[in-house]
């Protein structure tokens, strides 16, 4: 290897660094746009008030948590359309267990998370073991989860009342909906951050994560290298179901209710966040950092459009265009 080669290598990695953080560019751009277009009152930019910023993070926290799980699934080349319905099922489960079954906080959370995990694992089994396409397994899963949520809730929203009496949920649960933690940071946002950080560390630092990337990049190669492909896939679907259930618990806490219609269409929002964050739907390429950036980008966009009272229909057009452009920018990669 000659010296020129080394210089080249270093130049290479500067380039690939730039591309690695590409997913953040879009976010930065939208953030700047938000500042520029922010309405102001008494000389203060409304967008930049800490209240508003935390609102943005709170608003994206559910989709963000789901999108983190979705990132795993998409990295292995799969997709999970059932997450929105799973969120609904978990929200209903939380409400019913807390209020109708008087289960207490910890048991409820554990049971609901277990349901999400189990549902995800089952979908993983169907898709990995019987090799049915994930799209179709989870499309069916969507219907099944919705059906279960409707049956479990009796078809309508189950309201959560707080207190110590029977039929009342522990007050602690309502913290999910309040802005606490030093009176400012909303708990859901905090949970989102914790989940994201854990996922980032996990995807960076574990052998499991290499297996995830390998399966998405070349499943056959992964199998031949001794990667336990089926097991990894099943676990990944399990993680995704688990995180969707977590989002559902937060949802119920924020809204003091679990309704079988909760989370309708969230799957597409989550997928959009993942893709806008630069993860390839073909699998094998992407990151949770990108997903978080993608979710925040969409959240900031929603927020600034709302703060400017842009007509909802026009909002739809703008959001559609931004998604395409963001995805288009993502594909500029080192060739």
């Amino acid at each position, binding site marked *: 290897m000659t010296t020129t080669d080394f210089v080249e290598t270093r130049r290479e990695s500067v380039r690939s660094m730039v591309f690695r953080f590409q997913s953040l560019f879009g976010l930065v751009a939208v953030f700047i746009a938000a500042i520029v277009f922010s309405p102001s009152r008494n000389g203060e930019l409304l967008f930049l008030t800490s209240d508003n910023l935390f609102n943005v993070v709170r608003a994206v926290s559910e989709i963000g948590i789901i999108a983190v799980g979705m990132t795993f699934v998409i990295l292995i080349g799969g997709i999970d359309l059932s997450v929105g319905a799973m969120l609904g099922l978990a929200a209903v489960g939380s409400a019913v267990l807390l209020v109708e079954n008087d289960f207490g906080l910890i048991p409820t959370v554990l049971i609901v998370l277990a349901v999400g995990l189990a549902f995800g694992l089952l979908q993983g089994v169907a898709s990995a073991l019987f090799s049915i396409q994930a799209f179709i397994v989870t499309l069916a899963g969507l219907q099944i989860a919705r059906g279960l949520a409707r049956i479990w809730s009796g078809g309508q929203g189950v309201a959560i009342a707080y207190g110590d009496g029977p039929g009342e949920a522990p007050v602690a649960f309502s913290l999910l909906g309040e802005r606490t933690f030093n009176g400012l940071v909303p708990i859901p946002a905090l949970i989102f951050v914790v989940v994201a950080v854990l996922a980032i560390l996990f995807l960076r630092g574990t*052998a499991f994560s290499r297996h995830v990337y*390998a399966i998405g990049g070349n499943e056959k190669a992964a199998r031949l*290298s001794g990667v336990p492909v089926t097991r990894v896939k099943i676990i990944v679907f399990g993680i995704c179901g688990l995180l969707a259930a977590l989002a559902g618990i937060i949802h119920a806490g924020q809204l003091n209710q679990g309704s079988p219609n909760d989370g309708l269409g969230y799957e597409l929002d989550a997928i959009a966040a993942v893709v806008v964050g630069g993860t390839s739907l073909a699998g*094998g390429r992407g990151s949770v950092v990108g997903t978080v950036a993608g979710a925040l980008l969409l959240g900031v966009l929603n927020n600034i459009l709302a703060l400017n009272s842009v007509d909802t229909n026009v909002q739809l057009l703008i959001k559609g265009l931004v998604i395409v452009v963001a995805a288009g920018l993502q594909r500029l990669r080192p060739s």
Partner: protein
Amino acid sequence: MDNGVASLVGLVRISKSYGGVRACRDVDFTVRAGEVHALLGENGAGKSTLMRVLSGDLTDHTGTITVGGKPIRFHGPADAQRAGIAMIHQELDLVPGLSVAENIFLGREPRTPLRTLDRRAMLRETRNLLRRTGIDLDPRRQVGELRTGEQQLVSIAKALSLDAKVLIMDEPTSALSSAEVDRMFTVIAELRRSGAGIVYISHRMDEIGRIADRATVLRNGAVVAEFDARDMTADQAAEAMIGRPVRAMFTTHETADAGEKLLEVTDLVVPRSRPGRRDPAGVSLTVRRGEIVGLAGLLGSGRTELLETLFGAGDRWQGSVTFKGRALRPRGPRSAIRRGVVYMPEDRRISGLALDHSVLANTVLSIVDRIARFGVVSRRRETGEATRIVRELSVKLASVRDPVSTLSGGNQQKIVLGRMLLTDPDLLLLDEPTRGVDVGAKAEIYQLLGQAAQRGMGVLLASSELAELVGVCDRVIVLRGGRNVAELQTAQAGEADLLAASMGEVVPL
């Protein structure tokens, strides 16, 4: 044949079928410590299948595998690896999105005491490994960015890193040029000395003579001969493989010396391709009708790049190209094909074939709109065309309606060639056209190229096999660093001259 040396592994009466096709029939096979055991056979003879059984990749076979004399049952590649058996697969099986190091350690990543990934150890060990094997690669590079040949080196390094007792190499050198092959052979020799057993599959007969100790020949899935490789001649081996005496490998074709200039390339440069490359001169060459012109060079010398550019499938380029007297600025493969230029890519699986689709669909793909009337394709006509070309190229198959994936490697290669020939081209651009093709089929392909030249086509043939270049071409142009550095008349020059010119030792321009 057993001369007392203990077998590391053994295969006893192994049979394996794909649907109706019996790929292996009652095969017995052993690998001993410290030997290189060549496995020979035509395309589709069952070599890869047999080795995939041994490496735990295929588990639905009959017969017994023994390791150290004891029968064992593998449920997957991981089991075989645990038993000390590693395999380099014929079709490169790497993960493009992972780095060289990550690929090498995939499935057995080093971990820190905290059970997290030990990146540093991974990089360090990869560097050591690459140094030991003389492979010149940055372990952090993404495998997807590497050229085919480099990827093959990574596969080899990966297999070596397993420190296997038995190493199976299924055509490990098919994309390598002789310099890299030499380096690989040094490594193999070292391994053998340290007591490993190596199974070596290759269609490059010269390699077998150089490194093999023993050779087993398969035909139609069954063992038909075993040789002591050191005193086996190439003709003997070829005859055992094909089942009849071989004809001459290279047939000379009449070169119409005064053939008109078909292609003229002047100072063609592809600037974007590699940052930091400074070769302002670029490539200049001519191809006349009736001529077969070879392209020689080392890994990354620019052969593939040149062919892709001429076909309109490459990056932006500068320079001038004249084809049939007019400027050629192909906007893409489609327009190139319309003008009579066809291209056979280096990697047929990735770039050449829709493997799930039928032989028929793959064969007629380039001409469906030509044989359509008002957009409607006549079934009779397309079947006719496909059957004709498949016969002409003597492709071995049961029915043109079978998926092309069920054909052997060499026959798949012929399908790509057949698709090209059906378009009735003037200029054939071939990138390693006999990669992975057996001796018999090679001879047939060479003959076909000769016939094409005789019919007035021009052929530009890039190859890493020097024997092939010398045997088939009229002239060979040597590329280095993206420019032509030498041109040799094969009537006068030999393989050694080509190699020297490729490495930059002599520049006999």
